[in-house]
């Protein structure tokens, strides 16, 4: 399988490290990056984009702190888990829930007619196999 392409928007107000982190999370959820899949080294990904290594290091730090990335001296950085694995520790899920609350509140505040339908649509786009099996 060829490596997925990562796209960043340099004109976006969202910081670049956050965009890298977000795109990797989406690739893990979609199964494009299964558990154990290697990620490029910090230097190699920074050189691919022509950006500062510190920016990529910060994104990888975030992913490690969230338990989605594992870095060893032997195999470098690899994806630590997939959507089919047992749920992450409670503190990670609590943090996600808090951010989800803000996001849903935003939708509500903007008058999105059916927030649940939008959530289903987004989950359908991600198409994680385990979720389809569960429903």
């Amino acid at each position, binding site marked *: 399988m*060829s*490596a*997925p*392409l*990562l*796209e*960043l*928007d*340099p*004109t976006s107000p969202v910081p670049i490290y956050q965009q890298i982190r977000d*795109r*990797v999370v989406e*690739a893990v959820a979609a199964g494009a*990056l299964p558990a154990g*899949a*290697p*990620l*490029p080294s910090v*230097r*190699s*990904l*920074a*050189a*691919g*984009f*022509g*950006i*500062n*290594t510190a920016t990529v290091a910060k994104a990888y730090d975030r992913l490690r702190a969230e338990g989605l990335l594992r870095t060893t001296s032997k195999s470098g950085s690899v994806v630590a888990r997939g959507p089919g694995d047992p749920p992450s520790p409670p503190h990670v899920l609590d943090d996600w829930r808090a951010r989800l609350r803000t996001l849903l509140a935003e939708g509500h505040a903007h008058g999105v007619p059916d927030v649940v339908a939008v959530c289903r649509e987004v989950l359908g786009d991600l198409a994680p196999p385990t979720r389809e099996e569960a429903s």
Partner: protein
Amino acid sequence: MNHASTTAAIGVGACLLVGLTLLLVPSLSARTLPLGVAVPRERADAPVVRHAVRRYRVVVVALTALAAVVAGLVPSPAGLLPSTYGLLVLGFAAFVVCRRPIQTTKTAEGWFRGVPVRLTAPLGDVPRPPVPVHWYVLALALVLATAAFGWTRYDALPDPYPTHWGDGGLPDAYAARSFWTAFGPLLVALGLTAFLLVLARLVRLAPLRPRAGDADPLARPLATERAGQSLLGVSALLGAGLVCAIVVDGWLHPDRLRWTASTLGVFGAGLVVAVVVTVVRSRVGGPAPAPGAPDAPDDDRHWRGGLLYVNREDPALLVPKRVGVGWTLNVGHPAGRVLTAVLLLLVLAGLGLGVAGTVLGS
């Protein structure tokens, strides 16, 4: 053909070669990088872009004609140097001047305002084109075969042996016949082959830098890399061939070189074919992108004059060229600055030696 007309032909040929290369420059760039200026896809055919490229081509043709006439009228090695280098320098100047209207209009009209842009990079290893080792093996075989031939001729060589041939292919410097005087240039050919092989391996570490918006973003950078690798390999063989031909010419005709014109003609023709094949092979872009696909961001601030890459943030030492096929040094990288200084010194030293040699020789 007498000496003067041979030298004139070499000078004119060198000018035409440089002129052709300069003329090909716009065809060697992506559509969204006319004369090295980053523009959105929807502006790639803007009147100011087409006009600037046409103007550059007209100026290059005029400069080439002028340089060829100068080289033809001043048929001495001294004429070869200024006309060829002068053409190269003036060609770059024309490039820098002709691209300016595109930049001015782009900024004034805000071409990138509201245009979605994306930086793209593969999130994993992409298999890179292998180094075409056969060219280097052929170059090595050629040098070894030449050395073996020289071994059989060694005792027949005159002592002292010419170490340099000047105007008209006549020897103008001698040294005692030894392994170094007879076989030294072959070591240079070996060194050149080894250097190009190391370079070919190094460029596989350079990032690919796909441009957003292409249907298959990796197709173009990979095709360009494959073409660039072939050009490096062919250059190794052509370089080795040039040195071997001159060395064998010296062994067979130490009193007066006879093959200079034909050797340089074959070398020049080989170079033209290699460059043209590279141009054709590197222009793989894949199918046209879907309307509304994002563009590559405007990164003109990192490219001085559209040619020199200066980006302190970028950890890459070598990056794909923005104009033409191949790679260029990141002058913003500490090692890139050192290497650029070394290259500049080498060019200046070469020019200085050439001028000194001409002045002393005349």
